[in-house]
């Protein structure tokens, strides 16, 4: 088995954040979360439904664009992944732009469904490969989706964890604070601290993120790579090249 690639480590790490659930949904343009969801499915003893919006094969919605949101409202989607051009220390994410809205200095695509999914999905996993003071900021310029809500506001779920190219953090919505869970192999807690624009809790002893074992890598490179080739051909070709 060759050495673990960063994408493989991230997929396995995201998969490790997924509790025992029935239905995992993955939004557009998210190949690593898609790999993580399929990995969780492949290792689960129970029947786990995976919806990959980007795909036709792994998308059995038939009630139009609203169905993802309605199904999530019904409590039928247990896990969803959200990114953020900026993510702050209270797990707020920004997908709109930099500057004082509407006088932006940089414009991003927009909030997509994040302000909704962050409330209705029990387990939201934040994912951003770039871990830098530019992406992980003290306070986002624009709150697309808030990471927590004041008492009295109906909210079923929200961010539970943040996975980056450097580390894994857990989010505590009551304390509105991240806590470092692990740093990826070869990285240090000090490095994470320096690359993070917000304060977070640091355990006395910071574990190293578990590297995927041979069985996990076998799944990723075998059946899961085969599936990803259908709907993320570019990603699959890059990360899981077919042996010549």
């Amino acid at each position, binding site marked *: 088995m060759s050495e673990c690639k960063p994408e493989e480590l991230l997929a396995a790490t995201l998969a490790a954040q997924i509790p025992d659930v029935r239905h995992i949904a993955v939004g557009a343009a998210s190949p690593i979360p898609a790999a993580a969801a399929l990995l969780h499915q492949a290792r689960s003893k129970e029947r786990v439904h995976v919806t990959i919006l980007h795909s036709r094969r792994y998308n059995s919605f038939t009630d139009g664009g609203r169905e993802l949101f309605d199904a999530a409202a019904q409590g039928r989607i247990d896990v969803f992944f959200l990114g953020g051009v900026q993510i702050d220390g209270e797990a707020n994410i920004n997908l709109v732009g930099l500057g004082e809205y509407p006088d932006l200095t940089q414009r991003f695509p927009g909030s997509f469904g994040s302000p909704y999914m962050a409330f209705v999905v029990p387990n939201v996993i934040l994912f951003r490969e770039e871990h830098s003071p530019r992406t992980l900021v003290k306070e986002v310029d624009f709150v697309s989706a808030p990471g927590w809500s004041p008492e009295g506001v*109906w909210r079923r779920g929200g961010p539970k964890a943040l996975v980056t190219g450097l580390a894994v953090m857990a989010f505590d919505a009551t304390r509105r604070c991240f806590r470092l869970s692990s740093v990826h192999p070869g990285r240090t807690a000090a490095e994470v601290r320096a690359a993070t624009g917000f304060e977070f809790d640091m355990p006395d002893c910071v574990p190293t993120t578990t590297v995927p074992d041979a069985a996990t890598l076998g799944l990723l490179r075998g059946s899961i790579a085969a599936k990803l080739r259908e709907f993320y051909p570019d990603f699959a070709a890059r990360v899981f090249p077919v042996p010549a």
Partner: protein
Amino acid sequence: MSSFSPISLDDLVAQVPDGALLAVPADYSGAPMAATRALIRRGAKNLRLVTVPQSTLQADLLIGAGCVAEVETAAVTLGEFGIAPCFTRAALAKTIKVIDATCPAIHAGLQAAEKDVPFLPIRGILGSDLVKHRTDWKTVDNPMGGGGDPILLIPAIKPDVALFHAPMADLEGNVWIGRRRELATIAHAAKTTLVTVERLHDGSFFDDERLAAGALPAFYIQGVAVAERGAAPVGLFGEYEPDIDHLRAYAKEARTEDGFAAYLAREAGTAKAAA
């Protein structure tokens, strides 16, 4: 039942008045790209786009070509090919007004229009900065609750025109939309619905319950034009995949205004735009 006949693409887009509130679907549900190019050739102005709920190339072309005054959207992006260059330029330069929304709020607003009720309630979203800036959205205390339960109300979105591309129309003027039910919603919500299709189906979808399940009835539809590969270079569900090379090249070429003008002249036949 069957006094239906399709019209030309130019006649179809002639039914989109300048200034119209125009609902268009996301890439996965029949982006009307041929009609978009025809709208650009016509020189449509001041369109107020509603993307259902997001858009890629279609919105970017219309914005870049100067057809758009404002856009209500959950996102405009070229997805894996990067930012939508014209949208981004226009938003920053404020040559268009961006009305930031979120996917389920757009669906809710259209469903309110479908029922002709003034609003639909929606959970979540509270605390998002969207709520601060959307003065047309309203937070109220849940009128069915015991107090202390804030909930957001989304006003009806009533498009003047819904415009999309679909695999086929039948001889009665019904359009087959398959499982892309948001196309039914925008047709229901809109005053006028205009559709381009790949081809005509020889018969009625209602002769076969399997086809009927995916049909949008003719009485919602004011015009149908045949436009083969009418969603290209975007894909069409069940018919063809996106033209990845085209989209990748566009993302690069449209980074400059000159590049965009050249693209438009070549792809939409707007010689003047390139001049």
